């Protein structure tokens, strides 16, 4: 491949060697240790789940890219991220055919309908999860304990359910293994329905056996730190999500310690860490303005705690992020920064803080001849006599 010596083009002239593909590939790399640990926790069922969900996502992406209506390519790794994240949010023993349905819906409904990568309003993985949550509420609430003996040689029976058929009952299988059904509950469900709080170290590392926890929060934070350090992810969003969730939980805990669990439990149970680091930071569905990121993250944290405490569901991260996704264009609009130099001119009488969102003329290069501030025109209401 030959490169031209001089390339003549318009601004921006300085650019980083960062493409969509690079970013997505690095996110996939950072997800691999988390997936590996997840497989270590749950054995071949988790491996099969990750493979099938990611495969369904890739197949759907391939189909829609083939129609020629999509932005992006199959090779840009975005469908892989969707698949891996979706598999990590599903229970390890989730029937494979339901996982495939989730993957297809995630790409088709969450991404392809909007026009492909960068155009989606909602996080595709969460759209897929929300669909199966509504379609199969029993299966998605059925967790099995981690670190079961023989997990690398035997599937969790519900994994291998026939397509369209009800999965086998996990409680019967656990009983045969001399474990009580309560061992299969997530820490959040245990707290919500039985009033049992899990210990801090158990939550943090996910290393204690016989508990249904997701991927280790500590590991996710480390992988997220890698992404943030290499600037593939903005650190403001996870910090805002976790900070606002902790603050809300701490205020409630201070108000009534008997009724509400401690903020530490709130932060490290369920999918909050995974959601904050990997789902909320999805570039297409979160605000681009720094101030907007804080608002967006804070909204997610607050909504998560509110849904967990006051609704019938044990977990609220998914809906919190989806709601904040919907709000993010609005957040962007009201947190639009004043262009450099513009504030001083307008500062004579008042600073125009809220610039219009879609095409603020201040952002258009001066070289563009057509860059004129449109004047508001008031048409006369009364017809001239």
């Amino acid at each position, binding site marked *: 491949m030959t490169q031209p010596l001089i390339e003549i083009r318009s601004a921006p002239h300085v650019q980083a060697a960062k493409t969509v593909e690079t970013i997505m590939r690095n996110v996939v790399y950072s997800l691999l240790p988390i997936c590996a640990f997840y497989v270590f926790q749950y054995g071949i069922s988790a491996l099969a789940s990750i493979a099938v969900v990611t495969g369904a996502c890739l197949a759907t992406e391939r189909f829609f890219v083939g129609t020629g209506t999509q932005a992006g390519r199959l090779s840009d790794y975005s469908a892989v991220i969707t698949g891996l994240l979706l598999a990590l949010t599903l229970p390890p023993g989730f029937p494979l055919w339901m996982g495939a349905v989730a993957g297809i819906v995630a790409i088709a*409904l969450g991404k392809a309908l909007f026009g492909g990568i960068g155009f989606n309003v909602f996080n595709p993985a969460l759209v897929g999860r929300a669909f199966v949550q*509504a*379609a199969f509420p029993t*299966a998605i609430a059925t967790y099995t304990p981690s670190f079961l003996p023989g997990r690398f040689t035997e599937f969790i029976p519900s994994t291998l*359910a*026939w397509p*369209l*058929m*009800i999965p086998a009952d996990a409680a019967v299988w656990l009983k045969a293994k001399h474990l009580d059904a309560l061992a299969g509950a997530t820490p959040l469900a245990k707290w919500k329905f039985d009033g049992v709080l899990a210990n801090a170290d158990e939550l943090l590392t996910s290393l204690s056996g016989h508990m249904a926890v997701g991927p280790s929060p500590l590991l996710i934070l480390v992988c997220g730190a890698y992404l943030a350090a290499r600037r593939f992810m903005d650190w403001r969003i996870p910090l805002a999500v976790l900070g606002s969730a902790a603050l809300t939980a701490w205020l409630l805990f201070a108000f009534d310690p008997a009724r509400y669990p401690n903020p530490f439990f709130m932060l490290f149970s369920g999918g909050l860490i995974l959601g904050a680091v990997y789902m909320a930071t999805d570039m297409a569905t979160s605000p681009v303005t720094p101030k907007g990121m804080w608002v967006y993250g804070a909204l997610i944290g607050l909504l998560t705690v509110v849904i967990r405490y006051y609704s019938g569901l044990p977990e609220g991260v998914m809906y919190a992020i989806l709601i904040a996704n919907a709000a993010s264009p609005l957040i962007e609009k009201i947190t639009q920064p004043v262009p450099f130099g513009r504030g001083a001119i307008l500062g004579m009488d008042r600073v125009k803080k809220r610039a219009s969102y879609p095409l603020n003329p201040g952002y258009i290069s001066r070289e563009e001849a057509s860059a004129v501030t449109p004047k508001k025109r008031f048409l006369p209401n009364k017809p001239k006599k």
Partner: protein
Amino acid sequence: MSTAAPQTWDEFMEGVWRQNPVFVMVLGMCPTLAVTVSAINALSMGAATLFVLVCSCGLVSLMRAVTPKEVRIAVYIVIIATFVTAVDYAIQAISLALYDALGAFIQLIVVNCIILGRAEAHASKNTPLPAMINAAGMGVGFTLGLLALGVVREVLGAGSLFGVALFGAGFQPWVIMVLPPGGFFVLGAWLLFFAWLERRKLRRAASLTEAGQHV
């Protein structure tokens, strides 16, 4: 050979295919989304609407000369409401379970925009026979639209078709399909399918004319 038969057929097929009330005109969405939880509900709702549509369009067409223009909407409503009342009582007598399942949507046929639209746009300007044929076409089209939704939602949501189990006892129902979001998803999927069919037809026609020009 007379041209009457193809014209009549055209009149009928307008509602069934070209101007299908559900998939092309996207009218009457309220019953379409609400009662299509099962195929039998969809079919009976469609049949009820078909009956009201044909009868009221015939009567509107008969009375078109004596209906003052200023009160025509009121006249249409009274005519439609008469037939809806008859259907309402008939369904109640035939099957109370079905009547409960369809709920308020039978009475709401009165304000169904397909019927009012047909009465205003077609029946009030045509003789009774074409008006009724056109209305029958629209009614059949509406029934087919409802059935298309009802079949998909019943098969996925309950694993059965017209109440007959398809997959045996171990079927996992898709709860979302019998909930309102399922109605929107299935309707959207069908609209997508018909839009795709239409685009393909246009593309083929375009390529045909192009080929014709080259020859």
